[in-house]
């Protein structure tokens, strides 16, 4: 689905009939992408009128990951430009917008604040309702507007900063079935690339290198597979890769292209195995809780771009008799269309905020489960 193109029809499932079309402007600035988007619902028909993302990869490239202060500085001076461009491309003026939705957390607080304050300025100046959106809810609700997913479904959120299974039963009803207890896989891909001298972001370059590699040459661990449940761990895998690399450096003084390919393939296979097996267990839990619903697995986050992981999850879903949704990449990684969409679902439910809206560095989606310690390159978020 490209911006400007009408996507799937939505089954609202809430009995609310919307007489007029609703247009939401969304803002996102919680990590290293500044984004704005315009999404419209016309009855059951959803269209993304524009989705603009300004990335910051080059700004952070010289450092060991996203630098919060650098990110915050960029967001504060880019977010309004991003909004202007989104409105321009959508050919919509603020007077045609019904509400402003903005990521209010979780994330890097300096960036979140820039977005929230710009949104407050827009909301006050244009006299429009303000809606604070949880960034993770944005990811988790994406399959609704890209593929018309119907509640309940199982969501695997896997990115540079997150890794968790969510049972999505409503636009404001999330249960976490498990998640990483340390690093997120995207972060591990990025670190692996750095260790192997591959380009950042690490995901795509490790995937490319892995194509010519022999995954079985190095016996990398599959952490926590021996334990029940859906929790995951990736820091041990990172360490194992570091050890294998250092052993080669010591023995040979460097790495051959084949070494890099084999290490990449071995690492990727381990991540893929863990995600696939834990997804199987999460699907089992889903079937237990919703025996009468056809199971559906959806994935979002940058790591969902990985071909091997997609293939693994596709095959798993087929074996398990579950549907599988992987939204187009531009809506898997950080974007504002998902924020506008989540805002639209809140708009329908009459859930609004006012100008005292608080920006939150941490904001678990599932208030029932214990907080996760799982962090990522962006620090603990949820």
């Amino acid at each position, binding site marked *: 689905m490209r911006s400007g193109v009408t996507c799937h029809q939505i089954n609202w499932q809430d009995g609310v009939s919307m007489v007029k079309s609703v247009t939401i402007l969304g803002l996102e600035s919680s990590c290293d992408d500044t984004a704005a988007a315009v999404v419209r619902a016309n009855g059951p028909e959803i269209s993304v009128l524009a989705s603009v993302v300004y990335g910051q990869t080059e700004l952070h490239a010289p450092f060991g990951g996203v*630098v919060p202060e650098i990110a915050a500085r960029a967001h504060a001076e880019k*977010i309004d430009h991003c909004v202007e461009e989104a409105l321009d491309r959508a050919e919509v003026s603020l007077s045609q917008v019904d509400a402003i939705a903005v990521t209010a957390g979780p994330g890097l607080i300096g960036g979140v604040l820039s977005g929230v*304050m*710009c949104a407050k*300025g827009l909301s*006050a*100046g244009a006299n429009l309702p303000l809606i604070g959106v949880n960034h993770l809810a944005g990811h988790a609700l994406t399959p609704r507007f890209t593929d018309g997913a119907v509640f309940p479904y199982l969501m695997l959120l896997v990115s540079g900063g997150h890794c968790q299974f969510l049972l999505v039963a409503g636009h404001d009803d999330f249960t976490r079935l498990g998640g990483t207890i340390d690093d997120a896989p995207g972060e591990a891909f990025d670190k692996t690339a750095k260790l192997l001298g591959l380009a950042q972001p690490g995901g795509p370059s490790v995937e490319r290198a892995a194509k010519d590699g022999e995954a079985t040459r190095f016996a990398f661990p599959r952490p926590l597979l021996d334990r029940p449940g859906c929790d995951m761990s990736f820091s041990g895998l990172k360490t194992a890769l570091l050890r294998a690399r250092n052993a080669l450096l010591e023995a040979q003084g*460097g790495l051959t292209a084949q070494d890099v390919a084999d290490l990449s393939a071995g690492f990727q296979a381990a991540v893929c195995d863990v995600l696939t097996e834990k997804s199987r267990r999460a699907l089992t839990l889903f079937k237990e809780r919703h025996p009468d619903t056809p199971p559906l697995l959806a994935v979002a986050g940058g790591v969902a771009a990985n071909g091997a992981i997609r293939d693994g999850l596709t095959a798993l879903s087929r074996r398990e008799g579950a549907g599988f949704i992987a939204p187009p990449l531009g809506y898997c990684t950080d974007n504002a269309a998902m924020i506008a969409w989540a805002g639209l679902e809140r708009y329908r439910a009459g859930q609004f905020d006012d*100008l005292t809206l608080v920006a939150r560095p941490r904001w678990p989606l599932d208030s029932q489960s214990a907080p996760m310690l799982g962090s990522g390159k962006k620090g603990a978020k949820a």
Partner: protein
Amino acid sequence: MPPDPWVLAFDTSAAHCAVALLAGKTRRVCRVDSMVRGQAEHLMPMLETVLAEAGITWRDLNLIAVGTGPGNFTGIRISVAAARGLALALAIPAIGVSGFDTLAHGQAGPLWSVIPARRGHFYARYDEGPITGVPLQLSAPELDQLTGQKLCRTDVPAETFVENIARVSLGRADRAQPRPAPLYVRPPDAAPSNITAPILLT
């Protein structure tokens, strides 16, 4: 711009939300609420109260003036981002005014403008009349060496400070201005990656 434009000025570069509303050169409302944190939640409702006190609405405003620091990094971003959002929605200009320009406003002769920074340091700028110097960071001993020169410090009341932000912006409103941007002076703390890429053997 009308002859007596409504100017709304605000600043969160220090431990406060400071707001001034002027009609032309006349100060109509001025309020300072002290707080170490919580400016992001407090600022916008406070601006609405100030407008209400003067009996006007957002739509009546002609100009937004915002303090760009230097000062607390988060604080200056809060005001700058809000000012940009307001300017976009109201289709009026937002003008950023640095703390140095604010302190030097209406002062004659060569002078140093000095603003406290973290860890006992100071942000300072030396101006000779209209020729403004480069913003610097000074340690306390370095600041002490300036004795005998004219200093302007932020111990002016915050009310005067934010009112002067409005006055400086009025002086610039006749020509196009860049969008307000924070003045950090200090580069971000960031250490380069400590992982060195391996040698590739052929």
